[in-house]
């Protein structure tokens, strides 16, 4: 089952037919646009403090209201999109890269390499992930880079296991034996044959991972160790609005909705990819 153009088109068609997944994809695209072109959506600067206009409700001048230092909430949510999505993508990128590496090595080489790596995975899984993240962030500084790195470094185990399982099953297949007979080296086999087939489950894990990373960042912000103000992130805007949730509802509602729709979108898309790529679910 090599990657071939027919499969790809088939996959895309199935994915788009799934209305929920398509909706999720649309939401994701929308937020991508927002984070790529912030100027299009917000006219104020996100960090411009304006003491006179503290905690003003939505108005013509500030469509989503102002926060506790008079900063424009729309601008902060728009720039926060960039930050939150960046956190999600880099963290997942790290997790995926690491998981791919460990899974491929483990599944392909087997033997003691597999044993050692999998014991390591088991050990990592014994630690409660969130506390691992918390401890490391607390001990270092809560900078964006540390947050991304730590979420990534604690989230690769699932990908590793998935990739390993796929690799194990693919290793014994005919086309691999054929490639070997043709004299292909291990690296070539891994990259040309095994890797493409692990793409689908990785993609699924990645989309779900981005969703999870965004939620983790907002959890860290609640505890005061997420992305640090004045840099806006959806998590820290939401947290800032927490103590004034009743009368300054706009401060909680908009970042809350942003998180909700984005995470929802990624989950729907992820599921859609899983359904579309699963050969066993063909034809219903």
């Amino acid at each position, binding site marked *: 089952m090599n990657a071939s153009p027919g499969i790809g088109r088939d996959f895309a068609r199935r994915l788009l037919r799934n*209305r*929920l997944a398509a909706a999720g994809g649309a939401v994701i695209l929308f937020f991508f646009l927002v984070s790529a072109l912030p100027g299009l959506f917000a006219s104020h600067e996100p960090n411009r403090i304006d003491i006179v206009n503290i905690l003003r409700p939505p108005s013509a001048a500030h469509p989503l209201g102002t926060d506790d230092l008079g900063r424009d909430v729309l601008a902060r949510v728009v720039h926060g999109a960039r930050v939150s999505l960046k956190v999600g993508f880099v963290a997942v990128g790290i997790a995926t890269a690491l998981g791919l590496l460990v899974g491929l090595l483990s599944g392909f080489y087997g033997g003691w390499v597999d044993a050692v790596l999998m*014991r390591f995975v*088991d*050990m990592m*899984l*014994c*630690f*409660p992930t*969130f*506390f691992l993240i*918390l*401890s490391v962030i*607390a*001990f270092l500084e809560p900078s964006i880079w540390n947050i991304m790195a730590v979420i990534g470094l604690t989230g690769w185990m699932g990908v590793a296991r998935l990739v390993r399982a796929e690799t194990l099953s693919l290793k014994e297949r005919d086309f691999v034996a054929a490639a070997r007979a043709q004299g292909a080296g291990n690296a070539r086999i891994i990259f040309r044959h095994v890797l493409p087939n692990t793409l689908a489950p990785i993609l699924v894990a990645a989309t779900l991972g981005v*969703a999870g990373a965004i*939620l983790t960042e*907002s*959890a860290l912000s*609640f*505890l005061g160790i997420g992305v640090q103000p004045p840099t806006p992130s959806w*998590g820290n805007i*939401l947290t800032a609005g*927490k103590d004034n*949730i*009743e009368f300054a509802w706009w401060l*909680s509602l908009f970042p*809350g909705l942003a*998180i*909700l*729709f*984005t*995470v*929802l979108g990624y*989950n*729907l898309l992820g*599921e859609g990819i*899983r359904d579309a790529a699963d050969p*066993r*679910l063909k034809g*219903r």
Partner: protein
Amino acid sequence: MLRYIARRLLLTVPLLVGISLVSFLMMHMAPGGPIGAGTDLNPKATAESRARLKAYYGLDQPLHVQYGRWLGRMATLDFGDSFSPDGRPVAEKIKERIPITLTINVLSMGLIFLVAIPVGVYSAVRKGSLFDRISTVAVFAGFAIPTFWLALLMMILFGVTLGWLPISGISSLDHESLGILGKLADRAHHLLLPVLLAGFGGLAGMSRYMRSNMLEVIRQDYVATARAKGLPEGTVVFRHAMRNALLPVITILGLSVPDLLGGSVIFETIFAIPGMGQLFYQGVMSRDYPLIMGILTIGAFLTLLGNLLADVGYALADPRIRQG
């Protein structure tokens, strides 16, 4: 089978030691120490009193000595005393938090199973229907909403505006003076919102898993056979398909064992629940090494136990996978 279990249990010990060593090193690599809080920026503390406190906690010993001491104590299941000013035994602090954490986790897990399994099954059987679509969005929404935000909104609605439920805490002020039934009702009253919210957040994983399992099973030959035999759809679904789709749930049960004693610090903070989540978080923030090590060790042990239970349970339930 027994040999397999014995082998796994034996493997647990070195794994636990390894995990504890890693935890120990990680904690000590972190800047700051436990007595910091008591004497930081306190005009009344001096270098001498800090040094004295440090010796008091045994922190002036080299790392391997500290670890060795801890390991030795653990061998006799002595978790040591907490570094916090109250100096109470770690085991005592953990024990007093376990009941409430366990209660909430068991109840919310029960809720999740009760709701997610039927929803997942029905979604699979009626794939693509309105129910399927709505339930998909609903469960993912439960996962996607930041817990503390939803919690506060629910508190405002049910606690302040309607006054139906208490806002936070796990018991009323006059809890002790109530009879058995009264105490139960009081506890239930207080835990209703937390359990509902915890359940709502956890529905997604279980229901989607159930759904995809069910979908896979439905397509199997034996289901087509059952249908061809003319059996009513209900029998097909419940007697044949579901039973097999439920098998992986056993794995989930096993893997959920470590989560039983874990708590979300955010959840517990918002609801003022004195649970394991808060205990661990505060331990980490105040560098309460014995407490952190104690909780991590218990957690690691439970994870390994849960994995074992899941593997054994699955092997027992699925005749295709019996181990020698």
